[in-house]
């Protein structure tokens, strides 16, 4: 329990650190948010009024202080561009991104588990080498390019799935697969290597000697120990997954957070930038804490602290 509190406190420190860095960068961007809001034809007076309304005329450290105070009360501010509360915008976009990211991660884990479990007993054979090369190739392909290939073949030539946009599961299938497949290949590889190591250990031989079936030995006895490093990687991968989300959402016109954040950076919409960064940083940090806890469930020998 004390350990958990300590971890959460550190997580808070990390999050405050991210707000600091984001704020600094947002205000270093050459360009005037008030000018962007006012539009290119507005006169100097209008720009000045807007600047005052948005409190952009205050020194940056004071703006940062005010932001933190409001943040402490749970207020993320309003978008410069649309004047909508950032929290509302985030809520709307989060569900789209969360759906995509979870579906992608689920696909990655399924591919990873299946790939690892099937190939581990085949280590050293040509199947093993072929899947190694195949999975490296998948890992090496740019995700946005895979997305466009999928759009061209699955969506356009074969007309199996819609070409983009948000909506039902038919819209979700392609982006999720594109997002998850490379990561899945990596998980499969990682699990494969760990399983091969674990399968050579004494307790596996003991289990075999007791007459446990081959499938059960690999899928239950070995998997439990071999999946530990996988859990770490999955937890740490969330940030990488969010990168993939930005590109995947762009290719498939998926109305999620990634696009929102990207557009916000280009429009100097500081409150939205802060909101999206803070949200994704929170997710990443929490997932790291979760990884530590899951460790304990999988392997009770691990003492936290």
């Amino acid at each position: 329990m004390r350990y958990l509190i300590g971890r959460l406190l550190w997580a808070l420190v990390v999050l405050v650190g991210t707000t600091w860095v984001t704020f600094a960068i947002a205000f270093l961007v050459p360009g005037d948010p008030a000018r962007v809001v006012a539009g290119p034809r507005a006169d100097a007076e209008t720009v000045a009024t807007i600047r005052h309304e948005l409190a952009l005329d205050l020194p940056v450290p004071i703006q940062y202080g005010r932001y933190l105070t409001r943040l402490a009360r749970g207020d993320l501010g309003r978008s410069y561009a649309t004047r909508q509360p950032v929290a509302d915008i985030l809520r709307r976009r989060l569900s789209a991104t969360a759906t995509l990211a979870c579906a992608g991660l689920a696909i990655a884990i399924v591919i990873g588990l299946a790939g690892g479990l099937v190939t581990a007993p085949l280590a050293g054979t040509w199947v093993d080498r072929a899947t190694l090369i195949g999975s490296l190739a998948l890992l090496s392909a740019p995700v946005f390019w895979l997305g466009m290939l999928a759009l061209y073949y699955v969506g356009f030539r074969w007309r199996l799935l819609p070409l983009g946009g948000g909506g039902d599961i038919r819209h979700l299938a392609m982006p999720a697969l594109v997002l998850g497949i490379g990561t899945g290949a990596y998980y499969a590889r990682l699990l494969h290597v760990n399983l091969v190591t674990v399968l050579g250990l004494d307790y596996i031989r003991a289990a075999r000697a007791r007459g446990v079936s081959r499938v059960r030995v690999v899928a239950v006895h070995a998997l439990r120990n071999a999946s530990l490093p996988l859990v770490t990687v999955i937890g740490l991968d969330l940030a990488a997954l969010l990168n993939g989300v930005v590109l995947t959402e762009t290719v498939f016109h998926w109305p999620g957070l990634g696009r929102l954040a990207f557009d916000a950076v280009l429009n100097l919409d500081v409150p939205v930038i802060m909101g999206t960064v803070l949200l994704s940083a929170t997710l990443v940090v929490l997932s790291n804490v979760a990884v530590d806890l899951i460790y304990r469930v999988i392997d009770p020998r691990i003492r936290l602290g």
Partner: protein
Amino acid sequence: MGTLLVAAALVGPVLAPFDPAAAVAPQLAEPMPPAAPFYLGTDDLGRDVLSRLLYGARISLLVGVIAMIVTMAIGTAIGLTAGYFGGVTDVLLMRATDVMLAFPGLLLAVALVAVLRPSVWTIFVVIGLVSWTGVARVIRSEVLSLREREYVLAARAMGGRNGRILWRHVLPNALPTIVVIAALSTSGTILLDAGLSFLGIGVPPPTPTWGRMIQEATSYYRVAPWLMLFPGVAVLFAVLSFNFIAYGLAGDGRAPGA
């Protein structure tokens, strides 16, 4: 395969049959499918795709390698310092690393490019600034074990200065790890560069980059799929060859750094 790519990058401009920036196709208004003398087709502006790919190899690999050097320099410096000195230095540096890790790297890169204005140099620096965290972590853990080795302890007992011990004893012994991560991070930087170019904020035009060729092809992917197909294959091969190098060096098929 890697050699082939480097060769393409070096002599590509000589091999390129056409000027990559010139409209050479007989019909300019729309892309032409692959057919001699345009072996990979032409794009919507009538430029030869093969020539652009060959020129693009130069810039994409250059960005990948230099950004890797920046990444490795920052990551190694931070990892060495944190791992060797330990204590408060370690905690501070690793917390800073955690903060950086919590950012979605691509968005951070987008913001940094906006701060620094797009240019080739900006891309080198930005990719380095975004991707050093993993390197720092791996090198730190390597150094944590190295600093307890007898030769390091001996050097310290003999009164060696820290800087000298790091440079002469710790760094050379961490080198095998560093080389593997360097190969791996080159594949990462090439992908990141392609992603930035795809989002329209990479190395600015008219320099042809693979990522931007794919981005420019998005509007034509239905009528001219070859426009996006070939640059993607180029990125795939470049990244794959660096991944092969990394896995080959690591030796046991284990994902390096994991």
